[in-house]
């Protein structure tokens, strides 16, 4: 009997140690990576680095066109993916009848979330660049990344909605609310925390994507910014920037890494650090939002 208990306790200890080891291993790898980037790249980051265009002189080169490009692409991605993703998620969870067709659709969406990103790039090259003639533009890139993160947003939306107790729905109906009112006034506000977290995490995945953008033909050397969306004469707003060529942070980084000069490798490390920082900030915002919404919900 005592032997048995000792055995179980030993197994418990072994599992705890294995878990701890896995954790330390994961953290250490990340830490080494970040430290390496930090020691090589941090000294390079200054105001000029953020406000200069790429150059053949490593010391003069900057990432202005890259980070502006990244932001513009993310803007398009967010504009397209968030409404469509949330609406599709709500529909699938609340409206869609449960039959074999919806089951197949659901299965496919879950599958899409795991497809290698380069496949999306190839699809976008055929569809957006050649069929729809959108060119190698910010719009094409934004749409491509939107498609890439759409499944993630749909899945997280559904998960967050599903977590709301059925009694809430019934209470709303009992008060005479229509289905849309119930969704609008109850489901969406209560699940907003989860949905927004999912959205931001998927956006921070999209910002680091390189492969699909290279496939659609994103460029490497861009020493100008997209056209201004604000004009000085009527109609004051311009969407020309959507059709402009662009580069993004990961592509700029990739280009510098493959150069022979060590000074360019330092630039690449600095760019990596900025990208890491951006992802960290985005994930931080996600955590803060989730916390705020969780606190607000009082059932």
């Amino acid at each position, binding site marked *: 009997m005592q032997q048995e208990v000792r055995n179980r306790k030993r197994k418990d200890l072994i599992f705890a140690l294995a878990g701890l080891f896995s954790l330390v291993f994961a953290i250490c790898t990340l830490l080494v990576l970040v430290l390496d980037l930090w020691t090589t790249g941090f000294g390079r980051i200054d105001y000029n680095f953020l406000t200069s265009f*790429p150059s*053949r002189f490593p010391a003069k080169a900057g990432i202005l066109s890259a980070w502006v490009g990244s*932001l513009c692409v993310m803007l398009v991605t967010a504009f397209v993916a968030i409404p469509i993703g949330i609406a599709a998620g709500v529909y699938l969870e609340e409206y869609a009848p449960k039959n074999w067709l919806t089951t197949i659709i659901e299965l496919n969406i879950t599958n899409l979330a795991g497809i290698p990103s380069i496949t999306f790039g190839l699809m976008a090259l055929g569809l957006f660049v050649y069929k729809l003639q959108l060119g190698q533009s910010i719009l094409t890139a934004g749409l491509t990344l939107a498609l890439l993160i759409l499944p993630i947003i749909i899945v997280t939306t559904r998960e967050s909605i599903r977590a709301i107790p059925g009694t809430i729905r019934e209470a709303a109906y009992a008060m005479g609310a229509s289905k849309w009112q119930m969704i609008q006034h109850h489901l969406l506000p209560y699940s907003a925390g989860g949905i927004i977290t999912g959205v931001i995490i998927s956006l921070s995945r999209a910002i680091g994507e390189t492969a699909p953008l290279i496939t659609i033909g994103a460029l*490497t*050397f861009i*020493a*100008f910014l997209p*056209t201004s969306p604000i004009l000085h004469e009527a109609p004051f707003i311009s969407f020309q920037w959507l059709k402009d060529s662009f580069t993004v942070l990961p592509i700029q980084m990739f280009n510098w890494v493959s150069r022979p000069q060590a000074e360019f490798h330092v630039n690449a490390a600095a760019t990596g650090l900025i990208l890491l920082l951006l992802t960290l900030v985005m994930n931080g915002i996600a955590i803060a939002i989730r916390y705020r919404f969780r606190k607000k919900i009082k059932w």
Partner: protein
Amino acid sequence: MTFVELLIGSFLSKHGIKGVFMTRASLKAIGRHIDLQILATSLLALLILLLTVKVYAQSPIIKIDGSSTVFPITEAMAEEFQTSKKGAVKVTVGISGTGGGFKKFCRGEIDIQDASRPIDAKEMEACKKAGIKYFELPVAYDALVVVVNPKADWVTAVTVEELKKMWEPAAQGKITKWNQVNPKWPDQPLKLYGPGADSGTFDYFTEAAVGKAKSSRGDYTASEDDNTIVTGVATDKYSIGYFGMSYYTENQKKLKAIAIINPKTLKPVMATKDTVEKGEYQPFSRPLFIYVSESSYKKPEVKEFVTFYLQSANQLVPEVKYIGLPEKAYKLGEEHLTKSKLGTKFGGHSEVGLKIEDLMKREGTL
């Protein structure tokens, strides 16, 4: 009630939607959403503001794509050109590789193509079908350097035959030790590093060493990033690899370049600016090109850029660590443009061991 809630309420009632379901509570709920929207909109406004910094008016764009080997030269040209034009002309440069670039070039998607080898027969065919005519302009020399680990003291020079023995397709799985290539070399594993099959460097090396472009053994460590080859050879005593000269110049302490026995003079020659210019470093020095589409050349900005390219080459090419062509070659290039001498001088395949001036005198074919 916040201002926004009032606004929504008045908006809805104005459009005939009576306040039946606009209870205070539901307005609050909408208001909560609106707060988020305000947050989002203000963030957006901020972004848009950011984007307006330093923006140029609508200006013509010159699109360039192609070889990553030629990229540093074209990048320098694009940088200087845009500075001198103060943003009146935009230049974009991509790195799809020589092969990938030619595909775009022959579809008419780009104005100028960077190429680390001459256009090949298939690409000529594609361009012809699409009706794309082009100028072929050599812009610089590059040398392929064969490198070994600094501890590899047994080898200082190789012949082209030895390289062929190492790299030809027949060597796959068979030539695995140094002494199988040359009995004087040690009985140790031979580890090969080289660029991947999409690169023009690979095409040229196989053409020069094996005799047929793209004909290489497959069981070597291939990388599209030459720095991987540098690291590979620098850390492995029994390795050998090849890449463009600039990667060697930047890593001289980590690597040892070996001399190539010139097939004609039978003398070992190291890759230097001097030996490349004199045409002694053979067969591994090669010209780099830009291809300019004829229809694009009719645009004034492209014409201006190409002229700028040829006239600044003597100053900018050495700056980015490539070897410039003789002044005469650039002059001949300009002449080709003004006299509209179109087409390639190679007829669809690389030629090894050419003097650039002789090359330029040939008639081009499309």
